[in-house]
């Protein structure tokens, strides 16, 4: 099978990219491993989606539905219940897919958009000590079992990690009849939205233990007990602060990681902080024709931003197919100061910098007030004041090419402003 653009993943990112790339001159194929489109939105039955894009507050399924309707309308080809097994590149991409219905197939594509979302960090990767009974699972898995299949994975629950997924599950499990005994958060502040702290924890009198982590797990076959301890500024457990909870379930909300293992075999340049591809302003990786967007590129807090980013990636993939760019020599990495954790895109191709580039970035620590600066050749070419900065909230800045002095590298800095 020969197509122009293969889109791997039919969730929020893939759908937006497909719609944006849609053009009568190109053949697009969306490849989705689940039995329906929509991705993770299908299990996010809570609201808070769409405030930016639709100016309405929608639930996950409702947001997905908007894009699925637009997608179906455009008659773009898609395969469900189909998994990509391998991707190779010579001139074009050779994508090997497999499904129960069609067996193994090889698809040639001029461009590939990787919109495959994230997987959850596991107990093993955070090296949680203790026994290894049944009853410890990532919060997203528990969410799927509850919202899609209709099962509680336990009756007495403790949650590690106060990111939104942990908070949402605290509320969800309580409403469905479980007892949630508490949420522990390693940092001295929660990563989740304040609204979720109020409506998921305070509403149900679920205690939040900041600067705490789980230090022991007990239970041979089934989980029986966990111990949490306060941690110091170096995140070492403090003796004497042990608190023990009798639970049958420990949900982990300890981070999401972009799911790009398919590209381990290609020589994809990866970023150590985002754990995903290094891309330029076209969301194109170091492999030409390979575009990455959505959670597969970097973990987003708002699906609205996934949509906006993926629409750009889709359009760029379309441009790539119709009008391939010649390789440029003026590609530079954006320098950062110590207050910026990462920026996407990481690279700017100055040869093709003729429309504004939107930078998405995260700060390294909370700040009440700060100033962002773009610096080129030691000159400040742009500033932006900001309030209430937090690592959990993605920041954005649009750089207009007309402020550039020349094609030398840019630096993005953040300085705290004393209140």
């Amino acid at each position, binding site marked *: 099978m020969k197509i122009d653009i293969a889109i791997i993943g039919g969730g929020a990112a893939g759908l937006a990219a497909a719609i944006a790339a849609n053009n009568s001159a190109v053949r697009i194929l969306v490849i989705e*491993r689940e039995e329906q489109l929509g991705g993770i939105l299908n299990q996010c039955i809570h609201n808070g989606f769409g405030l930016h894009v639709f100016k309405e507050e929608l639930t996950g399924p409702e947001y997905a539905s908007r894009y699925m309707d637009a997608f179906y309308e455009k008659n773009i080809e898609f395969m469900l*219940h189909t*998994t990509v*097994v391998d991707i190779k590149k010579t001139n074009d991409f050779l994508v090997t897919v*497999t*499904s*129960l*219905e*069609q*067996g*193994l197939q090889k698809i040639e594509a001029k461009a590939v958009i990787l919109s495959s979302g994230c*997987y*959850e960090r*596991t*107990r*093993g*990767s955070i*090296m*949680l*000590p*203790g*026994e*290894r*009974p*049944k009853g410890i*699972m*990532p919060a*997203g*898995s528990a969410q*799927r*079992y*509850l919202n899609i*299949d*209709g*099962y*509680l*994975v*336990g*009756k007495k629950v403790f949650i590690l990690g106060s990111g939104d997924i942990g908070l949402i599950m605290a509320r969800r499990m309580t409403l*469905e*009849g479980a007892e949630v005994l508490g949420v522990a958060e390693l940092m001295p502040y929660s990563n989740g939205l304040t609204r979720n702290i109020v409506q998921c924890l305070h509403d149900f009198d679920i205690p939040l233990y900041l600067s705490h982590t789980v*230090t*022991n*797990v*007990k239970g*041979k*076959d*089934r989980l029986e007990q966990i111990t949490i301890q306060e941690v110091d500024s170096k995140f070492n*457990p403090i003796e004497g602060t042990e608190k023990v909870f009798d639970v*049958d*379930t420990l949900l982990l909300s300890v981070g999401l990681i972009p799911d790009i*293992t398919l590209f*381990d075999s290609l020589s994809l340049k990866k970023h150590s902080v985002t754990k995903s591809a290094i891309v330029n302003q076209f969301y194109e990786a170091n492999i030409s024709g390979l575009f990455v967007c959505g959670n597969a590129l970097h973990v987003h807090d708002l699906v609205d931003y996934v949509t906006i980013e993926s629409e750009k990636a889709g359009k760029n993939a379309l441009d790539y197919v119709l009008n391939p760019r010649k390789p440029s020599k003026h590609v530079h990495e954006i320098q950062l100061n110590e207050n910026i954790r990462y920026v996407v895109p990481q690279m700017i191709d100055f040869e093709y910098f003729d429309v504004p580039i939107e930078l998405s970035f995260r700060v390294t620590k909370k700040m009440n007030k700060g100033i962002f600066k773009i610096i080129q050749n030691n000159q400040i070419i742009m500033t932006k004041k900001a309030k209430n900065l937090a690592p959990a909230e993605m920041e954005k800045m649009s750089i207009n090419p007309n402020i550039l002095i020349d094609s030398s590298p840019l630096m993005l800095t953040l300085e705290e402003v004393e209140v």
Partner: protein
Amino acid sequence: MYDYIIIGSGIIGTTIARELSKYDVKILVLEKENDVANHQTIANSAVIHSGHDPKENTLKARLCVEGNALYEEMEKELHIPLLRTGAFVIAHNDEEENTLNDLYERALHNGVTEISFFSKQEALKLESNLPDDITKALSLPSTKVTYPWEVAFACLENAIINGASFQKDSEVTKIKKTGEIFEVEVNFKEIIKTKSIISAAGIFSDTIAQMIEKDVQYKMKPRKGEYFVLDRKVKRFMNHVIYPLPTAKGKGVLIIPQVHGNILLGPTSTLQDEKDLVSNTKEGLNQIREDVKHLAKNIPFDQVIRTFAGIRSSCTYDDFFIQESKEIKNYFHVAGIDSPGLTAAPAIAKYLVNEVLKSHQLKKNPNFNPIRIKRDAFYHLDDKTQQDLIKENPYYGNLVCKCEKITEAEIMEAIHGPLGNDTIKGIKKRARAGSGLCQGGYCEGTILRIIARETKQPVNKINYYSQNTPILVQETKVKP
């Protein structure tokens, strides 16, 4: 009535079962858990040691070297995975080099034939991630790595097609001898009669022995070993098994490339009272981090996907304790099988049957078939074989575990196969689904549904491992 009851279906019990099934005898393997191989066999380094480490003139030394050679034959007959990594024992200074020389002498004495010294440069050329401060290395090309529970499955499957019987969920609760016959009580109710008992009960060897002997000659001394598991994507970090110089505590923390591409770092060595507390500890994991620094540089700790721990069946006796009971005729101990137990297993089985059971004058089984056929994982096969298989069985087309590339057909085989199992962990042991990067985060739900469908059970009855460990605890919105 049986001729032999083997208590325990770990690597030792299963290799013994296979060896015995070469003879015309009636065999029953009893396993207290609900699956084959649950304790030491699924929580060790998986190394087939060369034989440089065990003390000279011990059973451990002899059976380690013999066992190492027997794995070649087992690979062909049983289709078990065997990774020929070779090994380096590394020295960082003159003192360590002296110990290295001692190890060399010991290895030769024990019967190791492939052995040589490598200079620092030669070793670093083959393994660029060895530490820069090594001075010399001992090369042991006969060191290999296997997949221990797969070996146990293979041996037991082969024993069964050659006539042996297997009973899981069968805990031995009492042993009585009346005349020449043993009465083995299982689960406090069933009585099974046998002429001989072979105890391969691992860490519970003394508990079982106490049921029939007044004066058990050894006491188990459980010793925990903790490990890190690194993801397959860093498999090029190290290709050989790397040993430090051994100390009184044992071989020390090693770096061990695994058959399926992961790398193990470990084990620690901590005595404890509990026989089955396999928890990981902060101290243990930190110990590994500290110790492994002497074995390599650029250690990719950010690629840890899992930690685990195992309990060694160490005991007060200084060697393998493989002998007939001095009190009770036809009760055979195979106890104290800690390292190099996995390596020695096939040799332990031959030693037991050929030497310890010599007086039983066993007659050969003329129909013994040594071959156990097992296809490689679907995604290790060539394109044509894959296409043929999918035509035959479309379930090979459905990828369930995307991290390790395991298909629905392979999961169905794990459920229905000769030693099939209907638990999540049982499927993981057989088909490897869920043992990769995301640790089942993606595929567990699908595997649950496949098991439920194939065994005609509701999803909330499917267990994680032992009885009463259902993943789905309660269906919502239904009246109880």
